[in-house]
């Protein structure tokens, strides 16, 4: 199904209509302005350190010291140059290469960090590792969203799947004293939530958004109820799971920056790498993926070649729930050590945003979740070293970054064509 393909023309008179996008120069001009005011006007004249190493690296990288004021000046000029340069290129009808905004964003980020952490040292590997950890439940959730929506079922219930996974992982993990049992149970719990979603939306054709929204409330109520009825009564017996602890992978974990970020994580994170890679590969290269996408794009066409649309959707939604459930397990088994009411705290909705932001693609959705994780952790890291910005505004950072990214970079996105529409056989 095609998408909104044209937009209203603005000009009235001209016989030539200008359709060039001035987004980029405008954005960089604004950044340049902000950078001029903040990074120069309010700069502390002290160096900011960027420590690229951790104690366990194979070799040490130097601590990079950037003078705050000078960096501010350079970044401001650079931003202005990019603004002018891209404006010029656009006016010449030339395409601005994508590396320009990419590097521009990187420089702007450096400028911001140097300004905000002046006179302090930021530990880059830790910053990145923390970002990854914050993103893990979001990635699991987003994968669940991507699979489900690619199969044609809108998954608003990611939050519920995460929450059910978190709850069950804590309880089963405690009772069995085995984190692996908890992890497995979380997947099953996520799948059960999916069954509910499937039964109502695929079997009974209830609007998928309604079902999703309602399931979120249902699971929140149910876990909250069971928590206050059972878990609070005997936390030791029911809510004290054995967690996963980090496992360093030999050699790999010693590579500076990369090692501490990616290879000193818990089993669940390693599992995540495998799942992301597997889903990203399988979605486009296997029979499973082909059929999954077929029922999400054009279920009737899939039906006419003998694919059982409802069953395909059913099991893939179940799979999506299982994966999201793992994300919930990560929260309780590896982050908080126990279940608490609404411990997922809206992660499912952020994951939903990542699905859309990542245009229903597993890798892009993962990157979207990582961006969010990075912004969240940056917020923490900066407020710990003492940033000049009020804490509430720092807390807004990840959300504002997401809005800017979606509005500025992504724009319109095209969902799987049949996502959200039930398949009704004639």
């Amino acid at each position, binding site marked *: 199904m095609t998408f909104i393909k044209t937009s*209203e023309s603005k000009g009235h008179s001209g016989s030539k209509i200008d359709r060039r996008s001035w987004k980029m120069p405008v954005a960089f001009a604004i950044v340049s302005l902000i950078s001029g005011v903040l990074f120069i006007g309010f700069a502390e004249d002290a160096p900011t350190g960027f420590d690229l190493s951790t104690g366990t690296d194979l070799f040490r990288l130097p601590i990079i010291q950037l003078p705050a004021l000078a960096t501010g000046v350079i970044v401001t000029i650079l931003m202005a140059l990019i603004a002018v340069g891209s404006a010029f290129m656009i006016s010449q009808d030339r395409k601005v290469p994508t590396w320009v905004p990419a590097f521009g964003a990187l420089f702007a980020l450096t400028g911001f960090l140097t300004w905000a952490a002046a006179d302090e040292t930021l530990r880059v590997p830790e910053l990145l590792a923390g970002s990854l950890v914050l993103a893990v439940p979001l990635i699991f959730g987003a994968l669940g969203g991507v699979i489900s929506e690619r199969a044609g079922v809108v998954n608003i219930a990611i939050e519920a799947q995460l929450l059910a996974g978190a709850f069950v992982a804590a309880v089963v993990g405690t009772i069995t004293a085995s984190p692996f049992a908890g992890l497995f149970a979380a997947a099953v719990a996520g799948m059960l939530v999916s069954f509910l979603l499937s039964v109502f939306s695929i079997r009974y054709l209830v609007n998928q958004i309604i079902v999703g929204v309602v399931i979120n409330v249902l699971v929140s109520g149910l876990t909250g109820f069971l928590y206050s009825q059972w878990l609070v009564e005997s936390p030791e017996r029911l809510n004290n799971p054995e967690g996963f602890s980090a496992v360093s992978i030999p050699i790999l974990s010693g590579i500076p920056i990369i090692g501490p970020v990616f290879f000193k994580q818990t089993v669940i994170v390693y599992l995540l790498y495998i799942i992301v890679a597997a889903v990203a590969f399988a979605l486009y290269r296997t029979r499973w993926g082909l059929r999954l996408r077929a029922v999400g794009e054009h279920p009737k066409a899939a039906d006419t070649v003998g*694919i*059982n649309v409802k069953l395909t959707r059913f099991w893939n939604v179940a799979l999506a729930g299982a994966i999201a459930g793992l994300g919930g397990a990560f929260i309780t088994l590896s982050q908080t050590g126990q279940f608490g009411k609404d411990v997922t705290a809206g992660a499912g909705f952020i994951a939903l945003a990542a699905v859309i932001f990542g245009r229903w693609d597993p890798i892009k959705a993962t990157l979207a979740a990582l961006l969010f994780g990075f912004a969240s952790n940056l917020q923490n890291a900066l407020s710990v070293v003492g940033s000049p910005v009020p804490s509430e505004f720092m807390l807004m950072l990840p959300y504002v970054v997401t809005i800017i990214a979606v509005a500025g970079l992504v724009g319109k996105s095209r969902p799987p064509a049949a996502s959200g529409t039930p398949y009704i056989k004639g």
Partner: protein
Amino acid sequence: MKLELRGITKRFGDLVANDHIDLIIEEGEIHSLLGENGAGKSTLMNVLYGLYQAEEGEILIDDEVRHFAGPGDAMRSGIGMVHQHFMLIPVFTVAENVALGHEEVYGPGLLNLEAARTLVRDISARFGFDLDPDARVEDLPVGVQQRVEIVKALSREAKVLVFDEPTAVLTPQETNEFMAIMRQLKSEGTSIVFITHKLREVREVADRITVIRLGKVVGEADPNADKEELASLMVGRAVDLTIDKAPAKLTDNALIIDNLSIADEFGHRAVRELSVTVQGGEILAIAGVQGNGQTELAEALLGMQDRASGSITLNGKELLGLNARQILDEGVGYVPEDRTLDGLVGGFSIAENLMLDRSDGAPFVRRGTLQTTVLNEFATEKLESFDIRAQSIQESVSQLSGGNQQKVVLARELSRELSLLVASQPTRGLDVGSIEFVHEQIVGVRDRGVPVIVVSTELDEVVSLADRIAVMYKGQIVGIVPADTPREQLGLMMAGERITEEAA
């Protein structure tokens, strides 16, 4: 393989779409089904293909009763179908579409697309298709998509092939090629069910014709019968297949397109430096193979193309740069190519669709409020005058058959004071009765002294409606010729051949 349908009855609620239909398809014959829009042809074929379950009746293959729970069963029994609405996944490649459902895999499910590509190449070679297995289907012209459908069906070694209105979207050349393919298949022993509304095609290839009306078989027709005979058998009344139209009475009103270029989002120009004038009182038909810029041109006339340069003036007023609202207010009537996507709001009632482009002021809106009484009177009147077959003006248009949907669009567009009418593919998929009506309406507009542009890939339509014919090829007009230009010549022009003798 001999196929027999016996006493098939299929109901949708109260509606009996198929009423005890008997049909026999002999091995190696081309069996044509004829019938009005909504007669029940597609339904019958869907039952045969296992998509629908019939309430009564049975399907026999080589005199043996079979039960098809789904298309999978039908395919296994050697039945293949090319559906009226393409059953292709737009974002998949040709090879993926062909493989889907019977994929060859390595090990645990890794796709072996090479096998599918080979399959595509082999079958293409057999029929002389030029198909790139790695092209994305949505990027392909409809004619090529049609071939993908055929390859898909053949890749499963179908013994009986059902083609449901395959030619509705094909150009004359493509149609001829397609009929050749059907003959080749037949000679290889494949049985074919061929559904079409185009009587010329039926007469050319069909071995047998079964006519269906209102869900019942009304009889067999002789392939040698003339068009009028077939048409009246199908519609149940006499149909006049020729349009009587008086010679054009040109007026001063004019649409002048000057040096128009339209770029697509990648900067390729879909229309290049196109100039043409349409006088009031004449119908300019724009012929051409689909995808040569006609769609863009028509959209630009309605202000729906924002990468357009040049000039479009209507009675001296520049249209380029105006938005759709302003252009509609200038009195431009627009019948879009894809009525379900661009022409109608499926969930709206007939009445609501009739006021869709007049939702701002009089007569249907006063002080921000809908005037339902006015609208209902208007709709009731249009229902009658345009012979829209519906239970009431409140019926949702998605319930109507294609022909009736098109009439709703026309009723809306023609009931305004027009200064220009642009109609794209006005009769695509309609039965002969509906076509007759639509054509009368368009000629009526022309006779009121309004310039009319009809974009059509259908040569029959072009020839019978046009006062002048402009043939488009690769974004340009390769020539403007009189309506009586021989088809062969038009065909050559549509393939890009420039013609020197220009008509005034």
